């Protein structure tokens, strides 16, 4: 069963701003799905329409088979949203914020109290339960929005840049938390993020949206296998006097002890090391220049812009 089915989704602001130009998208139940795209691509508009915060111009959206225009309540009951911007009452303490949202979702107070305690403890906010939301740090505010989105235990969790502005340690913990939620509870998760290593680490499927259209979608591993090359940064022991010519590998000298090497698809790192050894260069360490999904994403988005020009 599809957790989400979007067909021919169009959103036009006024007469001239075409935010979405006919989006078709399916997300399977239980999937961890990344919706990626540059700023202004239309990701938040899609999320807004799914959650009934934005009126669509055309098309249909179904959440677990419930059409958002026909079975609006059933569709909404299945969704938990962690939006990009903070959107809670800053004067309300943490616990009542959760209890209110539980109430809006028809959860009685006893169950709501128990769930609130669980999620606040899980997200390390229990000690702050009586603190007004405005007094929380940025990371705590993000976690409050996550707890709030989960209080009614939705089947589909939509995370719109959930780790923006969160320190690295908490971000990694959140990854584990979301992965656990997906694997143990079977919660379908749709994630938008600008940290592409986040999407690569957690998501099984991805759609890339640009200019209001989906330009690529599929299995993350398959998409990455289509990458034409990977770029590595190598730390070297010797100091290469000139840039070695190692065709088909393209090598650039970054500084005295660092080289950047493009490895085309079909060639192995072993080939590269052999060629480097032949020229007397010893490699002490290596890393990807950017993460693979990021590289794929950048190439795709750049080629889209070139097409438009």
């Amino acid at each position, binding site marked *: 069963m599809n957790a989400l089915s979007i067909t021919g989704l169009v959103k036009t602001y006024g007469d001239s701003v075409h935010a979405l130009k006919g989006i078709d998208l399916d997300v399977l139940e239980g999937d961890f799905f990344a919706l990626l795209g540059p700023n202004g691509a239309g990701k938040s508009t899609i999320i807004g329409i799914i959650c009934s915060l934005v009126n669509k111009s055309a098309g249909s959206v179904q959440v677990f088979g419930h059409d958002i225009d026909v079975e609006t309540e059933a569709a909404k009951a299945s969704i938990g*949203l962690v939006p990009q911007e903070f959107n809670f009452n800053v004067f309300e303490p943490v616990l009542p914020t959760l209890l209110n949202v539980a109430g809006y979702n028809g959860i009685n107070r006893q169950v709501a109290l128990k769930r609130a305690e669980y999620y606040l403890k899980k997200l390390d906010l229990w000690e702050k339960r009586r603190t007004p939301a405005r007094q929380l740090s940025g990371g705590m505010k993000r976690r409050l929005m996550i707890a709030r989105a989960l209080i009614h235990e939705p089947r589909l969790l939509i995370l719109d840049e959930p780790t923006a502005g969160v320190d690295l340690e908490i971000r990694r913990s959140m990854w584990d938390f979301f992965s656990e939620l997906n694997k143990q509870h079977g919660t379908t998760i749709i994630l938008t993020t600008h940290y592409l290593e986040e999407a690569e680490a957690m998501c099984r499927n991805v759609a890339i949206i640009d200019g209001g259209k989906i330009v690529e979608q599929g299995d993350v591993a398959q998409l990455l296998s289509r990458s034409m090359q990977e770029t590595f940064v190598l730390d070297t022991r010797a100091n290469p006097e000139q840039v070695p010519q190692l065709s088909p590998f393209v090598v650039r000298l970054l500084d005295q002890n660092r080289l950047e090497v493009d490895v085309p698809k079909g060639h192995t790192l072993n080939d590269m090391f052999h060629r480097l050894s032949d020229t007397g260069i010893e490699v002490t360490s290596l890393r990807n220049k950017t993460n693979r999904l990021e590289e794929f994403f950048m190439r795709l988005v750049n080629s889209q812009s070139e097409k438009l020009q």
Partner: protein
Amino acid sequence: MSLNTDSQVQATDGNDLPEAPARQKLDLLSVNRIAFHTIVRKEIRRFARIWVQTIVPPSINAVLYMLIFGSLIGSRISDMGGFRYIDFIVPGIIMMAVIINSYANVVSSFFSSKMQNYIEELLVSPVSNITILVGYVMGGMARGLMVGSLVAMVSLLFSDIRPVYPLITIVVAILTSMMFSLGGLINAVFAKSFDDISIVPNFILTPLTYLGGVFYSISMLPPLWQSVSLFNPMLYMVNGFRYGILGASDIPIWTSFIVILTFILIMGTVAMVLLNRGVGIKH
């Protein structure tokens, strides 16, 4: 700092929570009943938490009105409509408190939820628009009627009147607070800034209330101004309430009821259409 693992997380009763997400059929009636209670409780908690801003000032205002216009100046004014002046103005002052506080509660609460975007908590939930509307209106009515009751209690210091028709008094107060709560919601839907939520109370509600027979009987006015006054909806509420308390009014009681109910019907319909279309709250 890191997030807690399941083994570190236990509810106070010792039971781990992790349950599978609810898969049972959605009971919309139950959802809306609980959501309604939640909205009303939240609204009452909101104005109760800031009682220094919401409850005290209108009560002090009413005391000042009764002290200055009723006791000090009023003692030098002859009877009005056959009643002592202080007795004549008390129903109007109570009604003024009900009107302004019902309106102010909904307009400020709903507008704040728009400005801070936490109206989205409701919009993404399975709660129906009619529940949202009735919940906010009940919150406004609770504040309007609470402040009205406080003012009524304070008025006992200045006047010894008792309602002649208690049921009419209560019903007019309830319907009026409902009507102005609806007005507050409509204002909040259209408002884009804090200026927009103060324009209506300052430049429309207050003048209309003053000109709606709170401090005088329209029978004192020249015929032309008596006719003009009949277009002021406040006249019907103030006089309906005065009829309940004093048993006398410039307007027949059934006319008051018809006008109030008509306004409630129109404003309720407008508010529902606005919410259903998402005007001011959806993109």
